[in-house]
């Protein structure tokens, strides 16, 4: 066996206790960093999934990014005009069916129309502001997870009664409505509608569940007092991550404001960046502490082995070879520690995965965890890197031992 490997492995083997302590340090660092990454990314993925599931991936609304020019401004662009009464424009997306047909031709996913209006929901003397959304029960399951989020009733229940309505579970709880309850829906324009509750849904997003109701598209148009009004086109794409680019293209082609789920939740997604920075800082700190252990062990070994180093050098071993011995020892600790850390990390992640979170408000669920080879690879790489650095400095110091100084001292 190569001399350097031979000596390094012998040193490590003969210091079982010290080696195990160093290995345990690295393994703990690697293991916990894997668990942390699994938890953090798991919760992030779970949260993102809920966001994606709760809403369409892209919402095309009848708004524009910039307010359209008033006719006078469009004609006299070099003149400043004051006191004009702005032109009233008809609400809604023009030619919605034609736009939907053109989108269906190229968008990798599904498209559905919606009419959205704000209304006051009244029941048993309780009033609650809500967003009432008119949907097409046939198309809606293709663009949102609403069908799977139904807790009572189905989307088809909307056909069951005239003016049928589906409420968010929290909204229903707040006003005390149940399936079969007859509620009143009143818009700011004065439209009034008696509707029967035919279903309850829970998206998992509190704000949605306590302020959203679904009715038939036509019912919503009656509430909005505008026949044929479609003020939202909802799009669900096959790859949710591609939503942003698809939304940009839709906006370019239709001129209507097209908002992807990423844009709609920009603030939350940027919070993830901060969260990830915190996570990687903590993980880095864990591995750094572990590398101190390796540094300590290699320093101790080189200190204890000073005489042996002097003897090896006096016999003719070169500085580089001595340095390699101790760097290799650190690497051996790093490799064993990383492997043990993988096992520890996997075991801990599995154990965490068995914990059931029970909450009366939601269904029993388990901790969201992500098993990713990247986490294992990065943790091992960081452990090996820190071990290498932790080993290099004492190794360099050891290799520079001047044999005569040690031999003189020993004799």
């Amino acid at each position, binding site marked *: *066996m*190569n*001399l350097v490997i*031979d*000596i390094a492995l*012998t*040193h490590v*083997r*003969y210091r079982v206790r010290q080696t195990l302590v160093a290995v345990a340090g690295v393994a703990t660092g690697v293991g916990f960093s894997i668990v942390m990454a699994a938890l953090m990314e798991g919760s992030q993925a779970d949260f993102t999934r809920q966001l994606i599931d709760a809403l369409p991936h892209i919402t095309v609304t009848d708004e524009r990014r910039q307010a359209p020019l008033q006719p006078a401004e469009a004609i006299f662009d070099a003149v400043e005009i004051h006191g004009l009464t702005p032109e009233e424009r008809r609400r809604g997306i023009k030619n919605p069916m034609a736009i939907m047909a053109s989108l269906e031709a190229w968008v990798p996913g599904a498209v559905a129309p919606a009419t959205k209006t704000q209304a006051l929901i009244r029941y048993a003397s309780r009033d609650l502001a809500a967003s009432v959304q008119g949907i097409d029960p046939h198309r809606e399951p293709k663009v949102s997870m609403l069908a799977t989020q139904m807790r009572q009733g189905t989307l088809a229940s909307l056909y069951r009664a005239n003016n049928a309505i589906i409420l968010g579970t929290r909204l229903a709880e707040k006003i005390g409505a149940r399936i079969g309850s007859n509620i009143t829906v009143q818009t700011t324009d004065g439209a009034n509608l008696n509707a029967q509750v035919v279903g309850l849904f829970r998206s998992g997003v509190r704000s949605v569940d306590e302020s959203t109701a679904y009715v038939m598209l036509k019912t919503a148009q009656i509430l909005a007092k505008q026949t044929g009004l479609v003020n939202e086109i909802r799009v669900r794409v096959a790859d949710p991550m591609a939503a942003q680019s698809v939304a940009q293209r839709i906006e370019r082609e239709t001129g209507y404001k097209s908002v992807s789920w990423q844009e709609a939740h920009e603030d939350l997604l940027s919070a993830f960046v901060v969260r990830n920075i915190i996570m990687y800082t903590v993980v880095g700190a864990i591995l750094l502490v572990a590398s101190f252990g390796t540094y300590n062990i290699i320093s101790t070994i080189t200190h204890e082995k000073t*005489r*042996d180093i002097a*003897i*090896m*050098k*006096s*016999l*003719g*071993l*070169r*500085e*580089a*070879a001595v340095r390699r011995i101790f760097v290799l020892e650190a690497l051996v600790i790093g490799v064993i520690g990383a492997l043990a850390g993988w096992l520890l990390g996997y075991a801990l992640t599995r154990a965490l995965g068995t914990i059931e979170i029970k909450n009366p408000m939601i269904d029993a669920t388990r901790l969201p965890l992500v098993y990713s080879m990247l986490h294992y690879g990065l943790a091992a790489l960081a452990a090996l890197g820190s071990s290498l650095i932790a080993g290099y400095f004492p190794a360099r110091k050891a290799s520079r031992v001047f*044999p*005569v100084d040690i*031999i*003189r001292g*020993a*004799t």
Partner: protein
Amino acid sequence: MTEAQVADQVHGNGAGEPLITASRVTRILPGVVPTTLVRDIDLTIGARQYVAITGPSGSGKSSLLYLLGLLDLPTEGEVRISGRATAHMSEAERAQIRLSMLGFIFQFHFLLPEFSALENVTLPMKALGELTPEAMRERGNTLLASLGLADHALKRPDQLSGGQRQRVAVARALANDPPVILADEPTGSLDSKSSEQVFQILRDLVDQRGKTVVAVTHDLDMARRMDRRIVLQDGSIVSDESGKL
């Protein structure tokens, strides 16, 4: 000149040819008060010599040995090994000469404690890397057997007596078959019986294997039985006489 050429030249030398030459070698330890270890040493050591370096404590015996063995660098002057100037050699070049041409024996055996006697002996061979693992093991076992340690090859140093450890150290010094053995008080830590044994082994190295042995010793009786005695005092040679007394 390549290492092989140097080795050939060394091994080809007849008796009396200079293997080690020290010219006006002075070693001063720097410090607030600089300490002169050896001063103006002129010395030539040929092949097949059993040389004693003696003198009172602090006279510079070990320092001179370390300078001759390229473990230390002279402040002034030069040490030549087999005619080759060493003053401007790199650390790696000096290490290579120590590995192939010089064997060291110290007062305290200085064996690596985690390794068996055989592994300690094969260590310089592995560092030189000229033999196959099988050849290294065979040569190591042969050396240990020639020193009466055939049954102790797999024992670690802590399982051996002081005399046995020193014999393992001798075997290690001979591992790469160097022409010169430098010994620093090789019998200093041994009882009289083991001392005599080690002395005879070194004697045989000169007489039977044609090695040159340079040994620092306090033991004047032992020094008298050697071929040449160099006496140091205050870092300078005060006497250099040849022939057994």
